[in-house]
């Protein structure tokens, strides 16, 4: 059983995502590979801005599938996530039916016969035609499969989690009036969470649990390289080193990968060739989003820059 097929497939996932500009760690690649193999959703947790949503986009682009996104928020319910009846059309339908009632029941002499005819007449009031599919149902109806991104699940109410259980474990939903709708092709489901509240055990049990933290320095350099190609190698190494130093501070909001990329873009735009005190101080607001954080970081800047530039030279 010790063949190297899985290892090769995991590397294939890694390079496939890399082609879409998403540099995945091996753990992420393993998760993506496993979710495909044993058909389980991935629950991605981690701080804001480490590329949780990006992962879903990259998978969709890599496999050439459609991505359907469901953004969660407080108060999100069945009618907005799963399906809704087209009330207005249903009303119109009853109006039409009223007009045509004579034709439908035409020829029935007694009340009993009319009722019999009514029963044989197809019941289309609650039928597929009157269902307005929302993201979850849409995802099941894609013939070629799709990537379903359920974003920030922790923002939704606890009740909404229970609604998801059926779709997560069996890729099907039950509409009381119609019966069970199964997926034509099982979608790849990605759920993301910022750990704002603890998710229920039932939900967690149905998913592969992937935690994406801040990347290691080497990985982050590769991410910057792929996202901001114009940046020089020395500067890249220096700025990533600097950010890693900043992350050791006790701050309200640590700069994450998206901030690193933004900062790299800013530095390229300002045509910086090296990390200097001046330029760091001027652009610090790209990295740190709170006044208190910037104040806390100010006194440390000089030492951090010195450390980072030493790294750039030695590395």
């Amino acid at each position: 059983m010790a063949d190297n097929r899985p290892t090769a497939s995991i590397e294939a996932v890694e390079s496939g995502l890399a082609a879409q500009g998403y540099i995945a760690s091996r753990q992420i690649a393993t998760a993506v590979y496993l979710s495909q193999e044993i058909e389980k959703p991935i629950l991605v947790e981690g701080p804001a801005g480490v590329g949780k949503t990006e992962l879903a986009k990259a998978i969709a682009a890599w496999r050439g599938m459609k991505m359907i996104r469901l953004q969660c928020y407080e108060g999100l319910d069945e009618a907005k996530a799963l399906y809704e009846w087209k009330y207005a059309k249903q009303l119109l339908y009853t109006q039409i039916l009223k007009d045509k009632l004579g034709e439908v029941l035409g020829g029935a002499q007694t009340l009993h016969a009319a009722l019999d005819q009514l029963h044989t007449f197809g019941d289309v009031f609650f039928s597929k035609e009157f269902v307005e599919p929302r993201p979850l149902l849409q995802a099941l109806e894609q013939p070629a499969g799709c990537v379903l991104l359920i974003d920030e699940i922790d923002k939704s109410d606890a009740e909404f989690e229970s609604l998801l259980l059926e779709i997560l474990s069996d890729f099907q939903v039950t509409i009381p009036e119609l019966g069970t709708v199964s997926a034509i092709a099982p979608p790849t489901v990605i759920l993301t969470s910022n750990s704002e509240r603890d998710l229920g055990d039932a939900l967690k049990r149905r998913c592969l649990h992937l935690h994406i933290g801040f990347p290691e320095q080497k990985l982050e350099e590769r991410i910057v390289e792929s996202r901001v190609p114009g940046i020089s190698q020395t500067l890249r190494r220096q700025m990533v080193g600097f950010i890693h130093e900043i992350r050791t501070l006790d701050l309200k909001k640590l700069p994450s990968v998206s901030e690193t990329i933004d900062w790299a873009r800013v530095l390229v735009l300002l045509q910086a060739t090296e990390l200097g005190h001046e330029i760091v101080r001027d652009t610090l607001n790209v990295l740190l989003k709170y006044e208190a954080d910037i104040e806390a970081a100010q006194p440390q800047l000089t030492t951090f820059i010195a450390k980072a530039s030493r790294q750039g030279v030695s590395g």
Partner: protein
Amino acid sequence: MRENLHRFLRAARGAGVRVSPAESIDAMRAVSRIGFADRGILRDTFLLTLAKSQDEKRALGECFDLFFSQPEPAQDTKQDESNSDDAEQADSSAGSDSSSETGGGDQAENLGPLAEMLLSQDRTAISAAIANASGAASLSNIRYFTQRGIFSGRILDAMGVQRLRDDLDNLTATKPALAERLQAALDGLRGTVRDTVSQALLLYGREESENLRNEILRNAPLARIEPRQVEQMRALIRQIARRLRERYSKPRKRQRRGHLDVCRTLRRNAAWGGVPFLTAWKRKHRDRPKIVALCDVSGSVARVSDFFLLLIHSLHEVVDDVRSFAFSSHLIEVSDILEEKSPEAAMAEIMSKVGFGSSDYGNSLADFEKGWMDTITPQTTVIVLGDARSNNLDPRADILRRIAERSKRLVWLNPEGRMTWGFGDSEMPRYATFCSVVRQCATARQLERAVSDIVATYQ
């Protein structure tokens, strides 16, 4: 290999990772796809399928490393082979022994297989034998540290230590030098078996022994726990806080739903000619808990206050407004200190400011009325934690009455037993008349109940 996976899953449960049967099936399926070729990928696979939070991931990672650091037990087939080989091996090793010692191969042949193995110092054979004996003694069922002796004994028995003792007795009479060597080897074997059992206890027994310890800790008087247990107690308090958070932080919609809101329903359904397809409901107003805590930090009550403050301040998600005050001879506000610093540093600072004086309830209550009476609103629960021993000074129960009148509830938690209330300088009966609830609160269990009840009144 499946046997090993099962043992790993059991070890994972021991490490505090909740692994349900469904999850173990998933893990098995995943592993069957992944294979065992790459240990790193295997580790990632377990972390993905079994662990459901970061704490669990860390615990499981450690468990994985520990589990695969020990030599894997040999397969049964190998054991059979070695058994059948025993006779030949015995002959050859006995031959070498007899040549190196002083002849007399006939006696050496009488030795049992274990003695042979020990004398030949075949390390791999010994560790394989230990592993097989551990399997026979079902070592993975070990739960408590008190079982160490039993399991060591069982393993040694399964390895045939009885026969070894007989051999030892015989040899002592005939060949003292060989007997001494065998004795030393036996001591070494005992040590190895003991280590094996300890490791197994670490792997499989952690959860049970932790439960047992927590159970004891939960019922121990907070004021008198030993310094080395303080850290464990803090961990326990954090655990309690997490449980309370989970229970009370989820918003419950249904309970909040009130009567039909006619105006909003009509407005919302205007598009359908007023036919009410969508209904709108009024919501019952629900207060978020507001807590004002007054904690005695003098003498024996200090430690209880310490844990109480830790608990209250780890309930952010449930209680969004907590003001804490500490007093002994006078009273200060300590909310900011507790919010900003680590529990240890915060407590040290509080103690240096007000701690360990002789308590003066009257003066402290007067301080509170002067400075912070306006923090109490009709939604506030006021919690006083103290033994009400005021050193015969004026208790100023009139201030407590005014506090009770302003607040939603006034709860008094007393670390002393009910029997002692009112004796000596205890002012408890006088204070108790103004309190909505008075309860004893000396152990972590009582603390949990008390805080849980307070939060539940707001649900």
